[in-house]
């Protein structure tokens, strides 16, 4: 069974499930959402428990593995999940195939580009020398 198929034998007989490959996207959106429940709560709790949000304290926190690694995962997963979500919105409202493809490509570039900048900045802080 590929993830795009209906999940049960009866569903397959009845022709339920995705017509093409949408099932994969549906699953990926939900898997990333579960990851973001954990990472999102981690991020808010971490910011609350830091003694201060000044430059030195936040930089020091992001130089530790327990700060930098979940933050990198949060950046990747949130851009990934945001792209998945906006693709659903575009597919719902933009029906003309050319416009749909163009807009989804634009979103892909924006998400990959944004995530790359965020990861570069994080890496610079994480691997930077202590001030």
């Amino acid at each position: 069974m590929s993830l795009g198929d209906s999940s049960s034998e009866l569903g397959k007989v009845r022709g339920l499930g995705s017509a093409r490959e949408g099932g994969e996207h549906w699953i990926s959106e939900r898997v990333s959402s579960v990851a973001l429940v954990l990472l999102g709560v981690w991020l808010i709790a971490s910011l609350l428990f830091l003694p201060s949000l000044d430059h030195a304290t936040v930089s020091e926190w992001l130089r530790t593995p327990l700060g930098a690694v979940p933050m990198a995962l949060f950046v990747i997963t949130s851009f990934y999940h945001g792209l998945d979500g906006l693709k659903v919105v575009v597919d719902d409202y933009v029906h003309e195939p050319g416009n749909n493809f163009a807009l989804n490509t634009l979103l892909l570039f924006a998400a990959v580009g944004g995530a790359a900048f965020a990861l570069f900045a994080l890496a610079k802080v994480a691997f930077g020398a202590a001030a």
Partner: protein
Amino acid sequence: MAEQRARPLSPHLGIWRWGPGMAASIFHRISGGALTVAGLAVLTWWLLALADGGDAYGDFTAIAGTWVGLVVLIGLSWAFFQHLLTGIRHLVMDTGENFELRGNKNAAIATFVGALLLTAALWFYILGVTK
């Protein structure tokens, strides 16, 4: 050939009223879009400012501390909690649970109440600590 007469359409999209279930769905989509566009922009800006050094980070926190900055941050945290709770509601419904009218309505209302309470608690804590 006779001109085709307009056939009557079912008014399935023209007649509706607000209810907790559809409101939860709409707010899930709006909050997800806001988190992706504005939330990820703020996250990336914050990380870039942090990587750039104390001066750039000072500019970021100065802007974040203005009333416009606070409205954006409070709005994003509210969008986060709303999207988190309606997202969990969707994950529950993905398993086929809670489609009974009363339980579904109550869960939808609970996401709005919960998101407002969590946002209020977060910001009472933050503003209480810094003042």
